[in-house]
């Protein structure tokens, strides 16, 4: 049998053992009763860098191209906004009537401006949309707006990406790359950025002047304009194809970053497949909410156009509302005036994660960003879940 002897006489060890509590009590009593710190530096710095929400005012609204407006946000007192990695977005809270919804917009200004309390976003008008016409027609200089902290993962990561980045932008999808271009110019990032930018016509190009300026100021940023509806000297014509990417990528390794409308992604998927790139070299901004679930693989055709009952449980309260099969559950919840959390609205970030208590939903595969165990336990992201039956869902939180 094992026998261990540490002190000179084993019995003293036992006394010492019984003394454990006395030793501890002595340590406690010898300690000062000074008030505990209410603020910890590390925690405060972390909170400033990753704020849950930020309060800003609209300092300026600038027309940008034919149908886009750039909104300049500033802090009321000139204090800093959270620094971000160029390409990230903020989720913006938009109250419209009884509804409070959110939209995510890429930060298109230089991170350098964040230090002075300034962020820019660009809102392109989509007349069929709910939010962009409202913002364009109603937002005024001086108005207070609540936004999230910086979010998202479309940014240059030197430990992962090729040193040369080919950015494929469609329309207002230029915004994250504007941020990147400024970040390179201002020394926040260090990589070669070639933006292949698809617009309809030369006249409709958003940020034309700014892009020219940043290219002139910084030899690491290049822009190639591709016009789909116009042939013009000095511009490429048509769509962004594999051939065109190869032409401007040149020799050596490169990463592709994409940002644009869903139709552009659908087209580019085919083109990029031709390039035979490893998956790590192809990154895209989020898909946005899918507008045509009935065209997605696995959709039960009979659900299209139907209306269902939706019961929302929130902190013990219950709301009975209506949900359309053709819209994400989040939209039905917001339309009923119920504040619910959301950020990316693309199924990816998981901020709206909610318990599906009963009922069936359709979740398009390409916007199913759920954790594996959430699939097993019936948690869904309402921003990317379409009802297929009457639904009971438990949501928690509010919109920013």
């Amino acid at each position: 049998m094992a026998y261990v002897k540490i002190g000179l006489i084993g019995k003293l060890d036992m006394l010492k053992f019984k003394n454990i509590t006395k030793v501890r009590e002595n340590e406690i009593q010898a300690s000062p009763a000074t008030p505990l710190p209410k603020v910890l530096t590390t925690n405060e710095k972390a909170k400033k860098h990753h704020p849950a929400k930020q309060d800003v005012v609209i300092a300026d609204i600038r027309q940008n191209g034919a149908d886009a407006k750039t909104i300049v946000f500033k802090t009321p007192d000139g204090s800093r906004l959270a620094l971000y990695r160029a390409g990230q977005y903020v989720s913006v809270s938009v109250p419209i009537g009884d509804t409070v919804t959110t939209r995510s917009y890429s930060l298109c200004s230089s991170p350098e401006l964040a230090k002075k309390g300034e962020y820019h976003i660009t809102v392109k008008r989509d007349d069929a949309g709910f939010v962009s016409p409202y913002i364009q027609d109603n937002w005024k200089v001086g108005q207070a707006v609540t936004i999230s902290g910086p979010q998202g993962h479309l940014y240059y990561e030197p430990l992962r990406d090729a040193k040369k980045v080919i950015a494929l932008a469609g329309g207002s999808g230029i915004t994250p790359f504007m941020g990147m271009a400024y970040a390179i110019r201002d020394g926040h990032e260090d990589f070669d950025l070639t933006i292949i930018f698809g617009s309809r016509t030369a006249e409709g190009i958003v940020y034309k002047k700014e892009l020219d300026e940043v290219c002139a100021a910084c030899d690491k940023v290049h822009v190639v304009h591709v016009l789909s509806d116009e042939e013009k000297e000095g511009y490429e014509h048509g769509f962004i194809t594999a051939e065109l990417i190869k032409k401007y990528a040149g020799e050596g390794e490169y990463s592709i970053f994409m940002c644009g409308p869903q139709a552009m992604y659908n087209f580019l998927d085919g083109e990029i497949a031709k390039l035979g790139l490893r998956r790590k070299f192809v990154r895209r901004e989020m898909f946005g909410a899918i507008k045509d679930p009935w065209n997605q693989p696995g959709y039960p055709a009979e659900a299209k156009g139907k209306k269902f009952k939706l019961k929302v449980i929130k902190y013990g309260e219950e709301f009975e509302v209506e949900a359309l099969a053709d819209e994400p559950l989040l939209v039905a919840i917001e339309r009923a005036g119920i504040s619910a959390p959301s950020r990316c609205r693309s199924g990816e970030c998981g901020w709206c994660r909610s318990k599906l208590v009963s009922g069936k939903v359709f979740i398009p595969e390409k916007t199913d960003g759920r954790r594996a165990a959430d699939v097993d336990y019936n948690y869904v992201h309402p921003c990317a879940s379409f009802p297929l039956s009457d639904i009971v869902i438990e949501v928690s939180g509010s919109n920013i």
Partner: protein
Amino acid sequence: MPKFDCVVIGAGNGGLAAACKMALEGKKTLLIEKHNLPGGCASSFRRGRFEFETALHELCEWGTEENPANCRKFVVDDYGVKLKGHIVPENFRVITTASDGKTPIDATLPCGVEAFTDAMEKYVPGCRKSIEDFFEIGQECLDAGNYSLSVNGNTDNKYMMEHFPNFLRVGSYPVNKVFKALKMPPLAQDIMNTYWGYLAVDADRLSYLQYSNMVNLYVRYGAWIPDKTSHELTTGMVERFREMGGTVWFNCTAEKILFGDDKAVSGVVTDRGTIETRHVICNANPSMVYATMVPEEVIPERMIKLANARKYSARMFVVYLGLDKSAEELGLKDYSIFMPETADSAKEYESGKRMETNLNMVSVCYNTVNPDFSPEGTCVISLTTTYMDDDWANVEEDDYVETKNRLAKRMIERFEQKLGVEITPYIEEIEVATPWTMCNFVNVPQGAAYGYELDGWDSMMARMRMMGSEYEVKGLRFVGAASIRGDGYNSAIFSGNTMAKMTLGDMRREEEA
């Protein structure tokens, strides 16, 4: 105002266990969590086609259906959580330099007492007797702990001396002292010390009992991981809690704890309204709670002194890597590899205080144990280090990304160099979590996910023996890493179950009175 028998603040492992236990005993329980998902550190996140495990290397004190250890007994047998998982066949591999500053160490230790002892004898011929003694005494210590639990800490001295003499003899000493007394060769001590980082106190100060318990639980019961990350474990607990009648509020932050004239808990103010309750079980750090959520006049001076006497423990830094090559293709066979700069834990602890000197790290390759952890042709590796001081308070926001990337790069390169395996070209996804990230997601002080340092005087045994006087604010108890047993999933779960039991005892006494 909604009224509950008990409010649990925070859905970390400790809070989840406490909530489940209260619900199991039929108490009307509300679990509130400031984040939108459970687990605290014990979670997961998605990037691209990968889902990353946030924290877990392997669960201790789990065992098997036939031979369950305490943690499994609580979660699976008592709470009824259904889990799939994988047994981790090896305890660890350690690659380092011995305390003598010269001898290279590269040792792989399997689970199971015999296999472990044989392997130790192979690496350090002549150490067998000391390792056998270590395990024999280790079993005695586990038995003593179980006896103490079975009598709720009211141990009988005579019984203890008769049955657990070695336990009493080693009980007040640090690891290195007892290893020496066991006549363990220095090189064997170096290897046996490997797990110190999991408790984040060097072996000159770390309580032998606490360390022996951990190593014995790992070696005797094996280690285990859930199939679908910690999120499977913690969401599974939430679901059972709901099924047992519990209420969960996510995205709900506790702001203040309310007290009645009797200085006992009377409610909780949250950003979703005020809740009436007489019992709060709190998964947040006591120092922060006392400083910001409880009125000064209800906190006994001794509690403030205790908080002031303590230091925060390890602050986490993790590099998460999703690679587009399989573990097999890369030639990675080991699950967890400890790679301190030196096996001298006191030296390593010291250099762990600063970014520039902290080279300590543990790697985990999940696919070696769970081949389906990530899509075919890929694998996931995490590289973890801990900071022994608050060096991240010195980082400015402008330098944050550059700082964390520089340190991540250094860890990746050290991994490559130590294993002779190239991984950098295959990084498809990378995320770097720093102490700031821990502050952000779980609001632990200084990013210290391990609670308070388990310094000799404040080790598990001392905390547990003083359990009765540990929390003097009436109706308020604490669970999690900052509670009675320190860090680790099993310890957090144990603390949750134990504090729930004590709260149930309070409730019984109230009813009787």
